[in-house]
């Protein structure tokens, strides 16, 4: 029984996602409230009514006692998590014990991240975001909501099944030779070719990468590109997975089976005219979805995938608009517009291109102005008398010059912005106006809304209307060339993605090694389906271990949140260890520093939705000015019968061994320019693939004999 919803400050539902159980429970309750013979209310409306008291109480609490709810729990262990972002209230509910407060909070943050990646800085204006998230047209709304519902579903699935989404770090396919070849290919044969083509319509490929399921095979960034953050990359992988889900049945088949199975092509055959209009009838049906009497997980899964199918598949040559963080010489912009092209090479293997769109420098300017107005607002709120006016006067003149120039460059396309700016100027700079005082606050807000409006106009509205994109033939050629390149490797890659590395320590059940600086992780795979066998054996035992790992990751985070960097515990027949430490670039271990203790309601620890580790590194770097600081995590599961000192020795060895493959420069890191220059033709050490070889042997047997 799960639900996530976003409500505006007027207690209007801007988005919701609910599973069947929750819908059924709400319908039953609503049935009790409703009179006989009255047409049943749309689910959207009943959810609105039922949650209204909570939403209203939230704003009362903020007004009256300057505090706000963060969570509720009930005697039957239902959990509610509430999170206010600007003027939007996010509520997550779980009533089946599968998610706790932390999970719900994470889900809420992920939803916020997904909305940001889709709407960019429009999210900074609640009135504009409200329009985007809740279109007047019901069909359009259903269509949009189903898109985000599907993304949330994909996220929940990945978080439950995929280790990289569990720890929120990108998992790489470990094959240094192929990786190197691919990077070279992406650079010379793909990105350079496209960027010199005349069919690119003003776009420029900045990043290109190949995914095998959720694992990254190769990543190339052009020289003009800014670093792609781990948070953005993970979110993009999530979107790709949502667009081309890995069918779990197919995954467990041998590669030969996959070849003969054309099902995915059928699933994702693009429809000729995917307009939003044709979702009309299905949208109307949605309100009267029959309530299922049983909740068999398989059937629910089938239902979920049906819902996925209902969303008209996008035109494959049509890119998605994504807003990503960029730090360039022109300045910082947390949500710079990009176009994302997902070209599926084979089921499970995808080529992704991220391009820079024309006019994108406009976003940097808009961000600069938004930031200036926010700072001004903050100062105005602090000001009691006129003390800080003179100080802000200087920066205001600077702002005036820049904004005048900006508006002139926009060439009178936005009347609203011009008017708002004129009003602002008259208040601040004219003799008769009130000057810099609190009365300016509404003007600041208005200016921000208008700036967001400009941004929205250029990067959201225009794109959906125009056919601005790399030409279809250019996309096809790109797809074909990479297909040719990888044709011989295809089957290998699909298998490799299931057995990335193997273990060779006796008594070691599982481990995860995460390089938080690079945002990458390495771990043996855990497959819990009966079809395939992973390191852990299969079936219930693997399932059991998987649950242990999942809950331990959560546990370790809770201790990290409270400032503990080492946790070891004996749980049942297992001994679990977690370590977090810092190194400098040469691998010298730096002295441990207590991470700050976080509040329970602070952003979740991770990299996808809130970059905890980036903040941690920044915090740590303060005391290590001179050097590059790297952060690593190791998590291990051993058999409890092994003496502790051996387990600790194992962990020590593991950390040392895994350090080497983690240095393969596949991913952008914060010193990416350095890596990139080394990427081509860097000699790989033999030792790098050491952990790759050897099948499972002692581990599984000793484990099963328990």
């Amino acid at each position, binding site marked *: 029984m799960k639900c996530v919803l976003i409500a505006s400050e007027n207690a209007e539902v801007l988005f919701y996602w609910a599973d069947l159980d929750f819908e059924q429970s709400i319908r039953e309750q609503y049935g009790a409230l409703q009179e006989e013979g009255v047409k049943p209310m749309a689910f959207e409306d009943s959810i609105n009514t039922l949650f209204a008291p909570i939403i209203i109480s939230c704003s*009362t609490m903020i007004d009256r006692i300057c505090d706000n709810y963060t969570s509720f729990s*009930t005697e039957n262990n239902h959990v509610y998590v509430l999170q206010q972002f600007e003027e939007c209230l996010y509520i997550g509910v779980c009533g089946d014990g599968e998610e706790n407060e932390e999970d719900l909070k994470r889900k809420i943050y992920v939803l916020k991240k997904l909305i940001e990646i889709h709407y960019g800085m429009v999210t900074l204006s609640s009135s504009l975001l409200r329009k985007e998230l809740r279109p007047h047209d019901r069909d359009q709304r259903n269509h949009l909501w189903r898109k985000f519902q599907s993304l949330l579903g994909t996220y929940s699935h990945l978080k439950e099944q995929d280790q990289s989404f569990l720890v929120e770090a990108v998992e790489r396919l470990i094959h240094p030779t192929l990786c190197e070849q691919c990077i070279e290919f992406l650079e010379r044969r793909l990105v350079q070719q496209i960027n010199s083509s005349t069919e690119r319509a003003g776009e420029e490929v900045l990043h290109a990468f190949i995914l095998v399921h959720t694992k990254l095979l190769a990543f190339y960034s052009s020289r003009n590109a800014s670093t792609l953050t781990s948070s953005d990359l993970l979110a993009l992988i999530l979107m790709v997975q949502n667009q081309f889900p890995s069918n779990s049945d197919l995954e467990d088949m041998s590669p030969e089976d996959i070849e003969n199975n054309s099902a995915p092509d059928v699933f994702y055959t693009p429809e000729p005219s995917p307009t939003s209009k044709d979702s009309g009838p299905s949208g109307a049906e949605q309100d009267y979805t029959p309530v299922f009497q049983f909740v068999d997980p398989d059937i629910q899964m089938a239902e979920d995938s049906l819902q996925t199918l209902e969303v008209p598949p996008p035109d494959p040559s049509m890119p998605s608009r994504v807003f990503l963080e960029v730090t360039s010489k022109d300045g910082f912009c947390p949500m710079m517009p990009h176009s994302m092209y997902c070209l599926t090479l084979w089921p499970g293997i995808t080529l992704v291109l991220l391009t820079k769109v024309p006019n994108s420098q406009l976003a940097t300017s808009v961000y600069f102005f938004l930031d200036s107005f926010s700072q001004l607002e903050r100062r105005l709120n602090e000001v009691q008398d006129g003390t800080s006016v003179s100080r802000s006067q200087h920066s205001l003149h600077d702002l005036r010059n820049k904004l005048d120039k900006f508006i002139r460059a926009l060439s009178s396309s936005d009347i609203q912005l011009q008017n708002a700016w004129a009003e602002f100027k008259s208040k601040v700079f004219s003799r008769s106006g009130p000057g810099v005082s609190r009365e300016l606050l509404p003007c600041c807000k208005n200016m921000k809304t208008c700036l967001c409006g400009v941004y929205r106009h250029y990067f959201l509205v225009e794109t959906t209307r125009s056919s601005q994109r790399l030409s279809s033939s250019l996309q096809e050629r790109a797809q074909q060339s990479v297909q040719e390149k990888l044709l011989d490797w295809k089957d290998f890659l699909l298998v490799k993605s299931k057995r990335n590395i193997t273990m060779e320590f006796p008594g070691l059940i599982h481990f995860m090694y995460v390089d938080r600086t690079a945002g990458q992780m390495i771990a043996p795979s855990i497959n819990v389906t009966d079809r395939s066998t992973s390191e852990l054996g299969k079936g219930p035992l693997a399932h059991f271990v998987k649950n242990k790992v999942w809950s331990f990751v959560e546990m370790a985070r809770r201790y990290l949140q409270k400032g*503990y960097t080492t946790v070891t515990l004996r749980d049942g027949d297992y001994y679990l260890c977690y370590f977090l430490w*810092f190194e400098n670039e040469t691998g010298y271990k730096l002295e441990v520093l207590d991470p700050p203790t976080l509040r*329970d309601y602070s952003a979740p620890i991770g990299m996808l939705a809130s970059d905890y580790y980036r903040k941690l590194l920044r915090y740590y770097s303060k005391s290590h000015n001179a050097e590059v600081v790297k952060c690593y995590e190791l998590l291990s599961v051993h058999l409890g019968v092994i003496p502790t000192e051996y387990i600790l020795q194992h962990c020590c060895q593991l950390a040392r061994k895994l350090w080497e493959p983690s240095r393969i420069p596949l991913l952008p890191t914060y010193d990416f320019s350095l890596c990139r220059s080394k990427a081509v033709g860097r000699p790989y050490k033999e030792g790098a693939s050491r952990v790759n070889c050897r099948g499972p042997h002692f581990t599984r047997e000793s484990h099963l004999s328990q």
Partner: protein
Amino acid sequence: MAETTPPDPRWCTYFFLFDGSKVKEEGDLTRTGICYFYPEETALEHQEVLCSQLAGVCRCVSELSRSAARLVRLRKLKFAIRMRDDFLWALGCAVELPDVSVCSFLDKLIGLFGFYNGPPRLSYQLRSKEELATHWAQYLVHLQGGATELHHIFGSLHTIDSTHVCGNTEETAEWPRIDPLLLLKAALILQACHRCPLVLAGCILYRGRVVSTQMPPELTAKVLVHECETHSQYFFKGSNFKDLGPLTDGLASSSGLPSSGRVTSTPVFLTPSEVRDLRHPPVDRPHRSTCPPLQSNRSKPRLLSRTLSDTPAPDTDDHCGPGASNQTVPCSMRSSFSYEACVSSGASPAPGGSPLFSPDYLAEEKGGLSNGLQEEQKEEELVEATSRCSVSSKEGTQVGLETNDFGEKVEEEEEDGSSRGGAERMRQEPMDSERPQDDWREAKEERPVVEMALYRHRVRGLVLALLVEPQFHNDATALEEVYHSSLASLNGLEAHLRNPAPGLASAQGGPYIFAHYDCLQNTLATNLPASSPPGGSGSPHSAPFIKATSLLHAHFCQAPTLQEIIVRNAGSAVYGTRSVAQETYFLQQGTTVRNSGVPNPQDSAFTLPAKARHKLLKHGVNLF
């Protein structure tokens, strides 16, 4: 005195009881529904905001989830919630406290009120808000008073410290080492009182701390509240204790008692399940899981025919005797007792532990207690113990035998069968008359309560508290018997407790901190000083330990398969381990070698389990 310190705002920023039935209509004022609000000086407007918002949100949530709300968290504050009928109790406290601890704090508070006042609806009908407000305030102060932050986290009883490991000198002066023999003496007094069929269970308290008890920990905690109250009065008035009249709410103050100033009686209200447990000591109660096999296998046959002259082997377990199923002895003793006597069956008693139950010791005690009837009494007790023991082990088949004390009663019960309980309840709780009579066995913790009386006999700082059947006070013979049989021993015990044996110098606490929590008896042993400043979290060196302990305790509560855990940061490493019956936490001070946090077998944090095992042995904590 710790008991008189003002409430700690971290544990209770707000507390209120809100009656939703009074605020149903649009025009109803929120204030009419507020039964009690702490702090009482809070502006009424603010009270109304909190009460109405929390009540509204909790109702909305419980409708959505079809279950009562339990916890409401805000950014700066969190509320433990209880919803029953139209009532809503909310306890607001600091967000960093463990959920389990604050919820149990609230439950205790509600339990205390119910114990002394009966069901809330009824008590608010019978008495004024103002009168009951003084009670709430008293319970709040009591629950927050005393002992360490750790006691709050575990919600444990304050027991007398038998091991004395405290480094704090002030503490040392006030709570000297207690001779274990005195604990046995106390247990014997209780057993003697228990011979009276109208006495359900008893407990002996010394200056607000438990010396010995026959009650389950929850009940002991409840009995303690009035004791603390009077103890603080006593403390303030110096030795003026004789002037103390009946307690504030002494509704049924004893009439025919020989010395009314020292003996008081209060009506109390128990839940049916509490009464049931007291009437038939449940040998197979789930939380006694370590002992039952032993009792049924070993001790029963011999005990049946046992008298003192039998001089049974030292390992005989007669702790399943009358009411002794709940016998609490201070924590560290119990741990050795439980491990040696129960786990490794047949092992010889550990010094200081099992002598409590050894016959040699009984013989010694004879001289110590100046009661002529001692020997005879003890024989009878033992016989009684055996009969009870055998009965209770067969509980369920021979329901009626449990009161075993009077021949005629037993016969009556045999005829009557299980309906007796129901009939008796009818007599005692008219408000529960609609309940089906044979339903009582399944009685959950519901509203119906059974009225009993709490008999208290005070000898200076020492108090004998007995839970008795209501008719006890009309039974002059029973009253006198109990009074006289215990008077002399109580005087003796008090004298011993007041004048601790000299020469028992403190075994100085090492450079480590530990806490050992006994989940069954709800007792805590620790070498942390008890007097932490109000509102603070103890001295700076104990803060890391308390922080880690509360996190680990919450983790243990959540993860049933978790056995041990080590957490470390730059400054400290804490080791926690638990078994079915206990949790132990250990921190070594001053040994943290600065390291990088990378896996390192040389890290001193990983030597903590061995160190804890070694160091805690002398505190009677056995981790092997």
